[in-house]
């Protein structure tokens, strides 16, 4: 596979929520972008822009109302199981089982991904070394600190060695040290040739790790391109440029 293979392709993803009494809420309309192997793709937008909805559609938790997407060639609507097997997903909403230990959590998800027990044990050791989790692998998750939990979550995300990682605001609510773990992890994944889709509302994070980005606002892609292109169109102050894109959309 060439390094530039498009692993994540969103084609006109739209989602409309139906509420009570026939009221509808349009979360996204016509989201299009593509992310390649070996790159970090930033999905930037303010709260409520439709980032989480988009990522949930990519990970098949939500079914798109219009359009579709494919992950590593598998369509999210027709083959959700294969899509889920191909991605690792991490967000503030992916919690750990408080009454289980990290080792048990990893074993559980390993089995769900169909990994043999020896492979699960080997991956657990490997990730434990990499993320420095040795001290708390056998403590119950409810006894762990936020940073420790985040490490376990990261380990769960990459346990089955997926080609695509989808991270929904992975640094939200974390302190500098824990955020640092995430950023390092994202860079390492890029180094391993994975495709990382990374959503955030913080421009600075995009500038630090992303190769390309899409700015989402009001459920649409307002800008798409490389960081260099964004800089070119906006000048050096990226924060200002981000705000200008949002204002233009309003």
């Amino acid at each position, binding site marked *: 596979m060439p390094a530039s293979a498009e692993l994540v392709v969103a084609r006109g993803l739209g989602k409309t*929520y*139906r509420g009570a009494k026939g009221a509808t809420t349009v979360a996204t309309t016509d989201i299009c972008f593509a992310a390649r192997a070996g790159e970090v793709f930033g999905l930037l937008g303010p709260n409520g822009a439709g980032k989480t909805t988009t990522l*949930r559609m990519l*990970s098949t*938790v*939500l*079914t798109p109302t219009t359009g579709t997407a494919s992950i590593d060639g598998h369509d999210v609507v027709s083959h959700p*199981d*294969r899509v*889920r*097997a191909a*991605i690792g*997903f991490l*967000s*503030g*909403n*992916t*919690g*750990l*089982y*408080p*009454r*289980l230990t990290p080792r*048990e959590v990893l074993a*559980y*998800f390993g*089995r*769900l*991904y*169909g990994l043999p027990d020896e492979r699960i044990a080997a991956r657990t050791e490997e990730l434990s070394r990499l993320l420095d989790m040795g001290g708390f692998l056998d403590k119950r998750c409810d006894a762990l600190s936020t940073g420790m939990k985040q490490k376990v979550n990261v380990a*769960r995300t990459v346990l089955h060695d997926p080609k695509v990682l989808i991270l929904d605001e992975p640094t939200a609510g974390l302190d500098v040290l824990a955020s640092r773990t995430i950023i390092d992890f994202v860079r390492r994944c890029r180094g391993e040739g994975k495709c990382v889709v990374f959503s955030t509302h913080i421009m600075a994070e995009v500038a630090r790790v992303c190769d390309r980005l899409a700015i989402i606002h009001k459920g649409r892609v307002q800008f798409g391109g490389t960081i260099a292109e964004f800089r070119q169109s906006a000048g050096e102050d990226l924060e200002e440029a981000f705000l200008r894109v949002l204002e233009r959309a309003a």
Partner: protein
Amino acid sequence: MNLRRVLVIARKEFRDVMRDRRTLFFMLLLPIVVIPALLMVVTGFLKSQMKERETRVLTYAVEPQGKVLLKALANHWMSENMTAYTAVSARLGIEAFGGIDDISRVADRVQALEDAGDKQGGVGDAAVMAWVSAWRDLNEDQQQMLRDLGAVSRFLDQTKWIGLDKLPAAGPLPQGVTVPPDLPGGLGKESVAASITSREKAVHAALYVPPGDVDEWLNVDPRSAVSLPVTILYDSSQSLSREAFDRFQGFIDALNRSEVRGRLTAVQFGRDFVRPVAMNEVNIASKGREAQAFIGGMLPYLIILFCFFGAFYPSLDLTAGEKERFTLETLLLAPVSRVEIALGKFLVVFTAAVTAAVLTMASLAFTFTYGILPEGATAAFDLHFEVPAVLLTASLLVPVAALFASVLLTVALCARSFKEAQSYATPLQFLIILPAMTALMPDLQTELKWAWVPLMNVSLLMRELLKGNYLWDFYAITLISMFLLSGLTLWIASRVFRRESVLLRT
């Protein structure tokens, strides 16, 4: 759908809920420890209440001359019957004068055995058993004399007297209580009624006995005989006041029987002269069988209820609880289908419900058999815990547990939080209590039409099975009805688990 993945999910969920204290409490501790303990405490309390009522010293308000006459009447009874009870006590091997307590105990003991429906024998210490068999050799008059002896001696020994004029001050009469003003001996005074009905219960009944002595009232010319008019004022809505009435009535009945016997002998009339018709009463439905029917109805009710309790917490924990802990979305991101998730969770809740129900069944059977039976009445309570009946009962638990598990999972999944789920699921209890209680209605027969009503059919059928009645047609329809319903609810649950709006509602 992949069964291996369903089992992976079920295994993990099981491990997870087994570390939840609430689940453990409702699944294991409640049936094994709390039910027997509660039942024993409650029945123990009831028994001691009853005993306390029977042995309690009661206070009668009466004028002094009335008290004198009542005591004289009691002594008169004793002397009239002395020959008879000396003879009887000799046959029972009890010392005649020191053993009045023992003699009345024999009567009570036999009464208890007969109430429990035990006609053959019972369990007890050898001395009592010897009395009981001697008792059974006595003739009807002698047995009646012993019962009357109990009534007379209880009235004499367990009574405190208080003068009508020395009544403690009491408040006004409770609403709705009226006393006819023309009662004899001042019983019509409001203060008397007020002290009987007052909260302090210092006085349990008031008596009026006209003046005179025993000879004046009892040794009369047969042609001009007049009854001694005694009046008792009591409040049947209070148990102790009712007990005071019962004791007094027992005492008067004993007096009358003894006196009539004496008068008939004096005029050389046979006993049957004052009994033109003799009714022989044979009641097959003893109190023992009534109790058996009650326990037989209790078991299905409790088993169904605790089956529900067993399913309650795990179902909430695995749905709304997971939403609250943000673990549901993690699971949705794994390459498993939502039907597999639903089934995995279902299996765990189902197991918890069956476990709770089976434990309840075992624990109740054990408690009723060994724990709370009235002593000496084991045979009467012989519930038919036959192996086939137990197995059939257990087979009924399968659709019941499936129904509870799928309904609770569905309802709880729709909630955003554990608390919300609790407020949805708790009212369901009332939906199941009513059909489950039908076994407690002894008049409700197991007609085939009821076999179609879910839960009610299970409840009624369990009752019959535990009594040893194998109703195969009823069983077949019950299974069909229950499996159809639980299949439907399970299907609904799997549909709901596919709805993203429900799964992601937080």
